[in-house]
């Protein structure tokens, strides 16, 4: 953005405005000096020496000069983020001579522990420290926080995040020193054993708590009136909570608990609970059932308010049906499962809304009364995540059962999402399962739709967006009846399909991607099974050389390559049974072998 000189001058001379400055390998002292002296604004300082985009070699002398130049404006520092340290501990000579009287946020990554003393001393020299947020990933820095100099700053903190990669060897007696702490996050922090009557002021001020591999013994018998979100992952000393007084969080609406032992959950009182996320690592149903049973009292007691439940527990269908029957107000249910047969189609049929005279409910789990009144009648989102989905022969039958749930809930809209471990999951995207329709193309915007034909119509399974990067996208079925690819106009790149071991993958390839084999692709079960193929705004080169044995209808439109006809398109594409074709490229049509075509739409604008 361009501004006039006068406005530029006003901005640079206004102390309240923040300026961001980063020291990297290539940063020059003169540039830093000019930046510091050229403005009166507050400074958000970052030190990031290992920036991969910075190809320069590290120069210790230059780095020291830059930092010292930056330190000349230390009294104006508002935040300091030490992201990656210089090699060989070259930060020990760093000095901060001015008091850090305006510093509000510090973030110290692993490797900066030796610098923490300088930092804390400079903060402590301020008459009234303004420091409110501290993020520490260095164990030395954590230990220094409980030293006398460090304790000077803990009273003002409202946010503390301790993100250690491995557990500290010695207990860090830090909890009694926080009087204003609202957000506390700790990973792999070793805490001492606190007596039940030990004064812990943070219990009154905490609003958000995240503990991973940290002792929860200190929570026993306490009331946390302000906590709204609480995450406890792999807690230590949970037996103390189980044996001692309960933990009460009257305002907590979002609670996460991941542990192999769920019995301590019975000691948590959460009267405002709306969202519950529970994971148990027990590896079979026999061991998982008691854990789910331990969860039931909590779920039952909060049934009126609980609207979102995420469960990752190996358990029996009957017990799970029982537990879900306790929460009729549930709106969001996410089940994280090991494999497609972890829950049978009969289990999912319990979610289907049925008429009283519907005699097809005979195979449903539970009593007939449960079947007529479906599980979770108010559900508007059902998410299923499978750690292993591929290599399963009966996953298509499961999809049919899931589509039946969507179709049965005619008075509400149920989003049914399917995901499984793999590259697609890392992008946070998922497949959506819809009820049977006559025309899947009327679903609306989706990059990819696969369809399974049933007597009631085609069940569409759609992917809202295909990742923009060169990553394999495993398709949920080896075979499908319907395939629609429709990409947004802004994206380019050619499509590839390949059969890897036991499943079909789709990829988008770009010119800068690694070269691919030039030989024709192998026969794909997906292509052999398709009855309808729709390609819109996607490069159709992937069709070349394939035979679509069962294809009846085909549309390839808005797919013309702006750079000319791809050489691969001169390879014949066989569609021996296809009767209806819509293409907008005569060159492409010329490569189609269509002995049975009866209806053709063709665009002649070349």
């Amino acid at each position: 953005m361009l501004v006039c000189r006068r406005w530029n001058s006003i901005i640079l001379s206004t102390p309240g405005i923040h300026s961001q400055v980063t020291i990297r390998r290539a940063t020059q002292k003169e540039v830093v000096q000019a930046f510091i002296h050229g403005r009166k604004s507050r400074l958000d300082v970052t030190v990031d020496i290992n920036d991969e985009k910075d190809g320069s070699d590290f120069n210790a002398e230059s780095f020291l000069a830059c930092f010292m130049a930056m330190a000349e404006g230390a009294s104006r520092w508002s935040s300091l983020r030490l992201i990656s340290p210089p090699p060989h501990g070259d930060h020990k000579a760093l000095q901060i001579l001015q008091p850090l009287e305006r510093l509000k946020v510090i973030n110290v990554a692993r490797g900066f522990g030796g610098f923490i003393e300088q930092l804390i001393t400079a903060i402590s020299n301020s008459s009234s420290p303004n420091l409110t947020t501290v993020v520490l990933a260095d164990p030395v820095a954590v230990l220094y926080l409980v030293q006398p100099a460090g304790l000077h700053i803990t009273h003002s903190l409202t946010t503390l995040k301790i993100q250690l990669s491995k557990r500290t060897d010695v207990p860090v007696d830090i909890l009694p020193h926080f009087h204003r702490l609202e957000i506390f996050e700790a990973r792999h922090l070793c805490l001492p054993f606190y007596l039940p009557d030990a004064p812990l002021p943070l219990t009154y001020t905490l609003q958000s708590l995240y503990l991973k591999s940290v002792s929860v013994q200190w929570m026993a018998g306490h009331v946390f009136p302000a906590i709204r979100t609480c995450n406890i992952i792999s807690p230590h000393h949970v037996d103390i909570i189980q044996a001692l007084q309960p933990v009460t969080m009257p305002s907590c609406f979002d609670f996460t608990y991941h542990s192999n032992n769920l019995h301590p959950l019975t000691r948590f009182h959460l009267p405002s609970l709306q969202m519950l996320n529970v994971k148990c690592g027990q590896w079979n149903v026999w061991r998982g059932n008691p854990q789910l049973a331990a969860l039931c009292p909590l779920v039952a007691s909060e049934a009126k308010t609980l609207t979102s439940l995420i469960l990752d527990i190996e358990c029996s269908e009957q017990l799970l049906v029982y537990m879900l029957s306790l929460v009729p107000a549930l709106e969001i249910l996410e089940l994280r499962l090991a494999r497609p047969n972890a829950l049978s189609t009969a289990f999912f049929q319990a979610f289907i809304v049925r008429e009283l005279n519907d005699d097809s409910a005979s195979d449903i789990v539970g009593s007939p009364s449960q079947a007529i009144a479906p599980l979770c009648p108010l559900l508007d989102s059902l998410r299923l995540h499978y750690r292993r989905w591929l290599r399963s022969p009966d996953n298509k039958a499961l999809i049919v059962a899931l589509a039946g749930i969507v179709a049965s809930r005619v008075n509400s809209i149920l989003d049914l999402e399917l995901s499984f471990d793999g590259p697609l999951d890392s992008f946070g995207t998922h497949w959506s399962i819809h009820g049977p329709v006559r025309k899947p193309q009327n679903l609306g915007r989706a990059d990819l739709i696969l369809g399974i034909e049933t007597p009631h119509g085609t069940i569409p399974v759609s992917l809202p967006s295909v990742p923009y990067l060169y990553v394999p996208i495993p398709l949920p079925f080896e075979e499908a009846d319907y395939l629609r690819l429709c990409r947004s106009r802004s994206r380019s790149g050619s499509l590839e399909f390949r059969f890897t071991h036991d499943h079909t993958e789709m990829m988008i390839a770009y010119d800068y991607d690694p070269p691919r084999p030039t030989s024709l692709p192998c026969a794909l079960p997906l292509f052999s099974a398709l009855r309808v193929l729709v390609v819109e705004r996607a490069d159709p080169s992937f069709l070349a050389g394939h035979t679509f044995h069962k294809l009846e209808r085909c549309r390839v439109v808005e797919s013309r390559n702006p750079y000319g006809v791809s050489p691969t398109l001169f390879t014949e594409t066989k569609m021996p049974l296809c009767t209806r074709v819509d293409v907008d490229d005569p060159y492409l049509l010329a490569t189609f072998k269509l002995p049975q075509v009866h209806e053709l739409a063709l665009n002649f604008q070349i």
Partner: protein
Amino acid sequence: MNANLPGLNLLHIKDWPLNGDLIPILRSLPSLETLIISTSLDVASFRAFLPMDANETSGLKQTSGEGQTLALLCPKLRSVQIEDQDPSVKPELIHILKDIVTLRAAYGSPLKNFTVFDFWTEPGSENELIERDENFPMENIVLDEESDEELDEESDKEICEESKGFKLDI
């Protein structure tokens, strides 16, 4: 165009050039029954529908008694739909359409009408139907959304919501 389409009985032509010659296309489609053209045609382009001799000279240009054997391209053609064409702009179009229907009938053609769609002159689509009889009247039919749906359900063809034009159902 793919020349190996002897069994084709429906052809939807999009973005056809105004004065493009339809004869090479129609010659390769002996089984064609329905033709939909989504662009307006020059009047001269319609000569492809007239009976013609082996030299592709249409029956209109031949003097009587020449003894030439005339034949029809696409003898099974039953329906021709032309979209984006306003017949009132080109009165001579009416005459050639009448000639086509009349002359083809003499050769046993099942073609009984041309359906001309004009989507742009008024809000909503307007369908002008030209019947084969002595008076050759034009009938205006205004299509609304409901009639679109009926058409979609009944004929298994799709009227595109955006363009109001024909779209092959896939």
